[in-house]
């Protein structure tokens, strides 16, 4: 590719300020230098490099503290107005490695519930930031509501089963939940954020330190993609946590979904952009019909155009969402029904589009598409994994119901 990605995939430039641009630039350098330029090495020694590159990103560059307020040693990106900047960062990370991107997206999502204006919770931040956003690399894990099991009647969050519970006990809370499936890193997480139901079946979120002895982890899962994230089922057996570790303000679960959709969207757009680069290169080195360059065949060109289309529109969507979140005065807070719904709609579209981009592009690549040697198959597996997790239950069912609820005032669905 001899064109700059940012010259091809347009976005509202005014949303990204000079400071953000500097950080974005740093991350892009990191991506190019530490991962993209050495894919083969990265593939052969993935486990080790995964940790090393995460460290250089989070500790050396310091992204672990990106969304902390400045008074907590952070970059001070804890305002909805930073949404476009944060999404851009995730895009750059996702372009290099989706698994590192997911870990970052989940961390920022959870921190958004704690640090993001106007809901900055200083006490909680005081308690958590030094431990989990300090000099050591720490991993967060998120457990969302989802499907239930037959014969079990659970509290619901907009149709989705909440399988964990909190109950007040003396000066704190007790968290319970069995065989919960996090969206990432269950086997290694240092801090869990879990959506629980309280005694009145109302949804809230609880933060659970991973080193508590009553946190029991299942065996590490083998998954389609994102294996480096080391996911596993988790059970909480009467885990005691401090009072301040439960956040029960109205709309807090919606906030998680809003940010998660934005940030995983960023990751997938980045992965999609890297895939775009790869398939572009491939189409120039490959000849077909015994002579001419693949990209000059109209049918192949149309497939390439589909790839570009999907990535292009995904990036538009990403900034449409970031822009919406960044203007709470125009459209409401991230926990409002409107912003939550929009995030769900756009979030799932981004995943679908990027998935389609890759599926289409693979068609052109033939065996190079599924051979590990060419690296694109990892993107394909990673994105599918993100997409399936984001669905939560029954494919797009919950998102479609959310959509109908907002746009048509449905009550019973």
């Amino acid at each position: 590719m001899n064109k700059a990605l940012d010259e091809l995939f347009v976005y509202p430039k005014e949303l990204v300020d000079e400071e953000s641009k500097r950080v974005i630039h740093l991350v892009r350098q990191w991506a190019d230098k530490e991962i993209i330029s050495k894919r083969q090495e990265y593939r052969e020694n993935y486990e080790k490099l995964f940790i090393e590159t995460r460290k250089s990103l989070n500790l050396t560059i310091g992204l672990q503290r990106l969304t902390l307020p400045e008074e907590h040693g952070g970059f001070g990106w804890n305002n909805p107005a930073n949404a476009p900047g944060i999404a851009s960062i995730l895009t750059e990370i996702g372009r290099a490695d989706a698994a590192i991107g997911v870990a970052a997206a989940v961390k920022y999502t959870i921190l958004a519930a704690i640090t993001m204006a106007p809901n900055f919770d200083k006490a909680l931040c005081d308690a958590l930031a030094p431990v989990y956003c300090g000099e050591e690399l720490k991993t967060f894990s998120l457990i969302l509501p989802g499907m239930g099991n037959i014969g079990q009647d659970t509290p619901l969050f907009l149709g989705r089963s909440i399988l964990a519970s909190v109950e007040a006990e003396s000066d704190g809370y007790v968290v319970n939940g069995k065989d919960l499936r996090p969206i990432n890193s269950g086997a290694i997480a240092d801090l869990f954020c879990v959506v629980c139901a309280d005694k009145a079946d109302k949804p809230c979120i609880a933060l659970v330190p991973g080193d508590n002895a009553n946190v029991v982890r299942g065996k590490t899962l083998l998954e389609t993609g994102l294996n480096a994230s080391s996911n596993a089922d988790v059970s909480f057996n009467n885990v005691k946590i401090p009072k301040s570790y439960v956040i029960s303000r109205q709309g807090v679960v919606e906030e998680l979904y809003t940010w998660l959709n934005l940030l995983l969207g960023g990751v997938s757009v980045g992965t999609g952009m890297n895939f775009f680069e790869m398939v572009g290169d491939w189409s120039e080195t490959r000849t077909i019909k015994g002579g001419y360059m693949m990209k000059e065949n109209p049918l192949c060109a149309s497939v390439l155009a589909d790839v570009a289309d999907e990535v292009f529109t995904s990036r538009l969507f990403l900034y449409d969402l970031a822009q919406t979140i960044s203007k709470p005065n125009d459209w409401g807070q991230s926990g409002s029904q409107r912003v939550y719904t929009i995030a769900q709609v756009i979030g799932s579209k981004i995943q679908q589009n990027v998935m389609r981009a890759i599926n289409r592009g693979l068609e052109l690549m033939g065996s190079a598409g599924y051979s590990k040697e060419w690296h694109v198959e990892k993107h394909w597996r990673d994105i599918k994994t993100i997409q399936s997790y984001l669905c939560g239950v029954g494919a797009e069912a919950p998102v479609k119901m959310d959509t109908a609820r907002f746009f048509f005032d449905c009550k019973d669905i």
Partner: protein
Amino acid sequence: MKNFDEFSKPEEYISPMDKHIRSVIRNWADKEVMPYRRKYDEDWKDHHIIEPAFDKLMGNSGIGLQKALFPPELGGWGIGQSDSAFTISCALAEEVGRADTAMAVAFMVTYWPLTTILVEPHVNWRLAKEFAPMFCNAEKAVFAANAMTEPQGGADIENLELTGGKTIRTVARLEGDEWVINGHKLWPTNSGGVAKLFVVPCTTKPGSTDLKDFAMIFVPAETKGVTQGGPYEKAGMAADKNSDIWFEDVRVPSWYRAHGPSMDAQIFREIIPWGLAASMGFMCGAMLNLYEILYDFVSTKTYKNKPLKEDDHIASIIGRIAGDIDICRILSYEAAKMGDRRNKPYGYPIYSDEVACKMRNLKDFVSDRAVDIFGKAMDVLGPYGADREYDIEKHWRDIKIIQLWMGGKQLCQMEAARYFFNCKTL
């Protein structure tokens, strides 16, 4: 619906052997594959776990399927001479594919080169006799391979009408009563040290566009000058090994050429429908397995505290999945029947455009549906979709490979369009 056997089949086409064959293979799959297949991914290089299952399927110590195509007088089952050869293959492909499409392809590609010499009306008895013992008398699985793809051209070779064989760089030279073969092939199923016998599409006159110069020559793997690389690592299909093969001054008897000038090109064209029909069968098998797994899942997991399948919207999604399976199965059998009509007055030869191009279209369609419904099924499973324990994501990876092989989607599209619209320049 009672179970997955109720998915539509055109009942009038079904061979009398169908039920028996299915039950034997299903028994094998449930015993030899299902309990172990989650470990196949890590076994891609060594086949420690995979190999014994192949032996039980193909060798005489088990079902002995590898001899099925050979005539009974040579120790086989005579399916090559049957009027239902394609339809039976479809059933075999389904049943093995249900367990593991990679095993299905490795097993059935063994038939692939052999179809050129064992299927009526082109039985080459001399070669049939020559190779029968290798397959019919073996206790263990014995594989064959079709070494087609070359480094420079990708699947161009399958586009024989357009290129006339001009781009083929594997060359066979007749020296006395021996062919001397030189060339480099990539990717055939059952390479990487698996196959005992190759068929090698090649040219007797480099650069020629005269199809008389196209040759299909059998080469036993242990022949001097044949070198195979190690297997490639892939996104899926661990039971199917692929690698490079180099032929350096490889010498085989002159009568190892399948049939001779012109007929070899026709024969090469004839193997395509076999590959397409089998591909559809593999995918249908995987889809039947998808249905089994999905059925349990949507009956036991809940949304809004009701089983997923009792939510009208989710029902519409899984209904579409099952509906597509029903459709794909109908189409796969129809494709098989197009092959089995080859000797009927109302049928077309399998080298004809009618059969090859229509099948390309059907295979393209079934692939698209399969890719789509496996992706959708993973989404229905949500956080369990990507989990290997649920056995769907593996098929998802494999199915995509089936879509991409044999020239992939775009070649299918072009062949179909060329046929339906009589295009001249595609």
